[in-house]
């Protein structure tokens, strides 16, 4: 009951964030215009609310949900509260896929960049799975993930370096900074379906994540095929990360922070953490996107820039708190 209570509360928060994300924005609307948007679907105000703001807010929420879920999965698999999809290089691989496709001039074909980002995430996730089946230790997987992340970053830099067109370079950079500007309902769908699949997969891994609390070797003596469940968990995390990066570019730290926000409410149970973490991520990113829109700057703040600016100090704070608890 308590668990459903938490999830219901988080759903309410997500809904509130979506309502706020739809109601508020750069252009101020009067009460009459809000009423008009609700009554006349062909009015200008309705266009702003339902065709611009609402899908944008929903995209932010779905991307945040992907990142929150992927973060909770990665932290559970690695038994490390500081892990997130970015740390293991899945985001970087997806970013690399997108960068290559843009520089090769594929940006004109609809969905090509997104597909390339997905392929990048799949390759990154596949490499992680290959590695995880051979070396089960979480430390080994973290080190491999860091290497993968650096390498994907280096190849992305090489793409910049060799890119013949400064316009393409600017486009890649723009994309890598992360944004949900001008997203439509189809983006919500394209990200939402993988999120639902990943969430379904992740729920089957709950028992394994719980067993991993005792360490890899002991978990495998409890009667679970740990190798198989780890593959499913990494697959789900890669799918969610790929969907998020394909739609919004690289948005960091949500995957790290969302599980932390709710971990205390589920008594640190890594299985119960999954769905609340996805919901917390959804709420966080919807609010963060609203904040980027409301911040009075000449150039609109990029979502990825904003989350990194807020997230990096938060990461340091979490690391500091963790380090203090280790000393106890």
């Amino acid at each position, binding site marked *: 009951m308590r668990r459903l209570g938490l999830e219901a509360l988080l759903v309410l928060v997500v809904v509130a964030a979506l309502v706020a994300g739809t109601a508020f924005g750069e252009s101020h609307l009067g009460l009459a215009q809000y009423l008009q948007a609700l009554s006349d679907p062909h009015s200008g105000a309705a266009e702003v609310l339902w065709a611009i703001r609402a899908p944008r807010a929903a995209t932010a929420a779905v991307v945040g949900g992907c990142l929150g879920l992927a973060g909770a999965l990665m932290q559970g698999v690695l038994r490390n509260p500081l892990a997130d999809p970015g740390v293991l290089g899945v985001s970087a691989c997806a970013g690399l896929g997108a960068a290559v496709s843009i520089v090769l001039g594929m940006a004109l074909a609809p969905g090509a960049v997104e597909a390339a980002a997905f392929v990048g995430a799949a390759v990154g996730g596949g490499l992680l799975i290959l590695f995880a089946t051979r070396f089960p230790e979480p430390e080994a997987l973290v080190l491999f993930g860091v290497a993968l992340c650096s390498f994907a970053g280096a190849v992305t830099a090489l793409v910049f370096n060799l890119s013949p067109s400064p316009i393409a370079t600017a486009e890649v950079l723009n994309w890598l900074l992360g944004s949900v500007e001008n997203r439509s309902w189809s983006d919500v769908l394209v990200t939402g379906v993988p999120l639902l699949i990943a969430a379904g997969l992740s729920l089957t891994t709950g028992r394994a994540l719980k067993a991993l609390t*005792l*360490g890899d070797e002991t978990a495998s*003596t*409890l009667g679970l095929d740990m190798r198989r469940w780890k593959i499913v968990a990494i697959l789900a995390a890669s799918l969610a990360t790929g969907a998020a990066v394909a739609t919004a570019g690289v948005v960091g730290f949500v995957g790290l922070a969302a599980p932390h926000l709710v971990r205390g409410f589920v008594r*640190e149970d890594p299985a119960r953490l999954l769905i609340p973490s996805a919901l917390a991520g959804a709420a966080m990113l919807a609010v963060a996107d609203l904040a980027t829109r409301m911040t009075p700057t000449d150039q609109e703040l990029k979502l990825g820039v904003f989350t990194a600016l807020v997230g990096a100090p938060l990461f340091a704070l979490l690391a500091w708190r963790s380090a203090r608890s280790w000393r106890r």
Partner: protein
Amino acid sequence: MSAALEFQDLRVDLGGRPVLKGVGASLPAGKLIGVCGPNGAGKSTLLRAAMGLVRPKAGKALLFGRDAAGMGPVERASHAAYLPQERRVAWGMASVEVAALGAFDQPPELARVRALEALETVGASGLAERSVFDLSGGERAKVLLARLLASQAPLLILDEPIAGLDPDAQLMTLELLKGLTAKGVTVVATLHDLFLCARFCDLALVLAEGCLAACAPPLEALCPPLLAEVFRLEAEWLDSPRGHLLAATRLP
């Protein structure tokens, strides 16, 4: 009597180095068996091979007559439960949740009931709802022991179950394990305390540099010549009203 655990010429290499060099022993069901030997003798590796956690280079470890290396995780868990030396717990879950991991194959409600029973058995009922992060080392050891008991497996394999515990907790643990053997459970535990091994165990399996040095009732196995050769101790067993005591000095 049938063997709960049997090693047949078991050879294990770790990192290219031979750790077990052909160990053969048959451990009867319903007994408390102490695995002794100096550091690096291969005790932990022997237990891990019994659980199918390391692949033998040659030979076999048989759990109730079946090759441990060829068993699936579910079958293995139904035969044996394992308590590693490492007591790290990754997340600060409630103690009862951690103990319930032992009864993983059961529905959650039943697993919880078993966990609470096991916590009561180890004298840790009061810790049930506390986070394992807030427990002392000894308290955490009790919760992890309860996790093992909650499995209700017919064979319990424990690596250094009393290391780092105070005397009361050491005796409590061994009395508890001894009590389980009366119910037909087989318990195999590595022990560094030869005196406690002699007092509680039915059999002592002594390893020396990856080879079997002895497998017999403790006072027979841990005889002065063996203590001198394997442990480099000049030692003798003394009778006392509370059992046998070991008086020992290091050999030069």
